[in-house]
Structures are given as C-alpha cells and as structure tokens.
C-alpha cells in the first residue's frame, strides 16, 4: 500500500517480516527469561502456561530467534560497517541525546549509534546462544562448572540485550516518523533528509 508515492522505501516486506519474527521471539524470551532470573518476575510464567511450560518453550523460541537473527544479520551486516563519519557521530552522541542534532555529521542509511547497536546485539546473541545451549539441561549435559559459567554469562548477556532493545525501541519512538518504517516500510523524504541525509541523497539523487 503506497501512502505517498514519493515516500522512500526503507525496508522491504521480507525485511520487516524478518525483523518482527526476531522481535516477537525477543519479547517471549525476555518475559520467560526474566521469570527465571528474579522472583519478582516469576508471575510472567503465566503467559506461557506456567513454570514448566515456560522452561520447555524458552530454549526452542531461542533457537527460532537465532535462526531469524542470523538471516537478519546477513541482510544488514554490510550496511552496518563502521566508518569515520560514524565514529564522529558517536563522539557527539551527547548532543544528540540532548535533543540538539544541528551539529551532527551527515549519516547514511544507519547512523553510528544504530551501527553500534547492531554489533552489540550481535555480540549479545552470540553469547546468549552459546551459553543457552550449554545450560539446556533437557537436551544436553555439560560439566557443572561450564554450566555455572554459562548461567552467569546468559544472565548478563540477556540483561545487556534487554537494555539494548529498550534503547532501540525508545529511539524509534522518540524519533517521530520512524516506527512506520517497520510497519509498512516507508519513510517521508523530509524524515530521511533530516536524520539520514547521505542516504536521502543516494535515494533521491539530490
């Protein structure tokens, strides 16, 4: 469905579907994982049909997330290579957070913050999947010291991942006109010109 034929296509339908598959898996994993992490969150197991079901489902959802994430990684890895302009952007991130983007260097499809987010999420995913397999007791049986370390690493990486996702989702909500890119794929030209000028130029030839 085209809202304005001059809007810019930022994400294809399959990219969006891929993203939401990862997103849904993340939400389910965060809810069930937090339930096992701290007693205050234990009631979240009710979303999954109780404690044993949450324990059974969590690793399988994890496997699905990894598969979807790997596909998404290869879709976007090339676009997330860090450049000098990204580092310059990151060095001034304080101004951006303060709500003043006038001095920010021109950015391509992704800014330095988004790229950093991409690589930190990838790193967290790697730690989560390896440690997750090590502590998957119903399928595997590893040495107890290894499982203990994996349990700690899994918890820490999961906390990092949840923090990253909160920042990721908040940044999208904060920057008006962004969320629609993940709903129906397009952004306005003005949005692109303001936030990703190099990409805007590349898309419009201006």
């Amino acid at each position, binding site marked *: 469905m085209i809202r304005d034929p001059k809007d810019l296509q930022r994400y294809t339908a399959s990219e969006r579907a891929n993203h939401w598959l990862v997103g849904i898996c993340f939400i389910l994993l965060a809810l069930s994982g937090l339930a096992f992490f*701290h*007693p205050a969150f234990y009631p979240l197991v009710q979303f999954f049909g109780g404690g044993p079901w949450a324990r059974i489902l969590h690793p399988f959802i994890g496997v699905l997330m990894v598969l979807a994430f790997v596909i998404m990684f290869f879709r976007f890895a090339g676009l997330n290579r860090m450049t000098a302009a990204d580092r310059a952007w990151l060095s001034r991130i304080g101004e951006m957070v303060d709500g003043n983007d006038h001095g920010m260097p021109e950015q391509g499809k992704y800014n330095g913050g988004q790229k950093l987010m991409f690589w930190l999420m990838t790193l967290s995913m790697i730690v989560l999947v390896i440690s997750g397999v090590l502590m998957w*007791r*119903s399928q595997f049986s590893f040495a107890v010291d290894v499982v203990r*370390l994996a*349990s700690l690493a899994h918890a820490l990486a999961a906390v990092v991942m949840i923090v990253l996702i*909160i920042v990721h989702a908040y940044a999208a909500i904060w920057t008006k006109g962004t969320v629609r890119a993940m709903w129906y794929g397009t952004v306005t030209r003005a949005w692109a010109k303001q936030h990703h000028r190099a990409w805007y130029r590349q898309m419009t030839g201006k």
Partner: protein
Amino acid sequence: MALQSLDIKQRSATTTPAPQARQTIEIAKLIDVSACIGCKACQVACMEWNDVRDEVGSCHGIYDNPVDLTENSWTVMRYAEVEEQGKLEWLIRKDGCMHCSDPGCLKACPAPGAIIQYANGIVDFHQENCIGCGYCVSGCPFNVPRISKKDSKAYKCTLCSDRVAVNQAPACAKACPTGAIQFGSKEDMKDYAEKRIADLKERGYQKAGLYDPAGVGGTHVMYVLHHADRPGLYSGLPQDPAISPTVSLWKGVTKPVAAAALGLVALGSLFHYVMKGPNEVSKEIEKEVEKEDAQ
C-alpha cells in the same frame, strides 16, 4: 514432599522472610563411616519407604550399585579401596544429600517454593513446584540433585521429612544393622560423634574427625571419618565445599543490580521523552521538500 507439620525456614525464589516465631531444634543424621559394613540395607530401606525403584542395572566390576545417584536412588553406597600405611582400607561412604545450612540448590532455584528448608535443617524438594530447569544441579556443591528423564522434576534425599515430621528416624537410620547411621538433634549427634572420634583416635586413627563443613554453614548429614584431614579419600567427598562463586554472583548481586538497571533504563527513556520532547522532523526541512515538489 509438601508437609505443613514442619516449620519452614527458607523457601526458594522468595524474597520475604518465612514465619519465624516457632523455634524448633535442628536435627541431623550422623553417618559413622568407621562402623559401616557396606550391606546396603540403607539403600533398600530408602527405596522401600519412599516407593522408588531404580532400574536393575548391570555389574560395573565394583560394589557400587547403582554406580551413581539417580532420580530413583536417593542414596548410594560408594566403596573406595585405599592403601594406608601398607594396609588396605575399605572406605565405604553412604552418599546422598547433605542438607546444607546454606543450600546451593535453594539459592539457585528460580521456582518459588520448589525447594524448602525446614527449621529443623532438612532441605526438601517440592516437585509440584519444580519446573525442571536443573539450576539446583548447578547450585549443589555435592553433585546430588538428579532430574528425572520421565517427568523433568528434580529428586534427592528428603531426610525422610515425612517420617521426621511424626518423630520417626529416617528409614535408612532405622534399617542400619550396625548403628552406623544415627539420628537425633544436631547437638546430640555432635556429642555422639565426639565419643566415636575419641575411640577411633585411641585405635590409631589420629586424624579421625567430624565432617560438618563450615563452607556451607554446616550440614544436617554429617560423617565420622577416620581420615577427616582427607575427605577426598571417601570417593571424592569435597575438602572445603561451598556454593560456587559463579553461582553466588549469578544468584546474588547480579539479580537486584540487573533488575534495577533494567528499571532505570526503561524509566530513563520515559523521562527523556518527557523532558527533551520528541525528535520531530523540522518544519524547515518539510518546507524544503514541499518546495522541491512544487518546482
């Protein structure tokens, strides 16, 4: 086993204190290794009382049968052949849950009420609340809990909490033909152990002593050992057992700090929005684009 007749001291995955008004005495089981003849009556009594039946295994060339604890064998005799001063010593240890005062299983368990520590010291698994994650296995410094392949629940020695609740000694203690398994208040058991240790010292075991490791706050299953300086001789009984520092970090400071961090980041985002306002596309740029369209 859920039993209301025993007072609860600690409950897994519970952050508020348990009722504490009623004061009960601590109990203990004392296993006098020097008096054990390895008859396995305790193993049989455990199966009988608790209605658990392990698979009939095969002979592994040693007396240990089964060779390890399982979800159906909550206690096993471990036979170690050790040469001490040119003499063969057959060190037979009844292995099973030690009922720690500071139980690693309970600390690691994420399911509220799946692991209970009673005021008398018994640490009990309540399988109806168990979710089968196996964290208790990671938490235990003695490698005791076992997860059933059939029902994914964790099992171990209950110290016959159901018998103790009605003033009966555990089944194993009742069945022991040599008095190697004693049961009573922890204080009485320590007194009894002292006499046994004095006797052993008289008979030449200078290093005889009580195994009640402080690293886990003491245990409610204690051993009298002829070589208390080297518990490892007894089929790998740990020298200084304690909850692994990894588990303490994972289940200790990490939990509140991480929960607070998540809350702060979420709240911080909300307040950022409220205080800085949304990052909208500027009217200027919108006009620029409109102007280009008009041309």
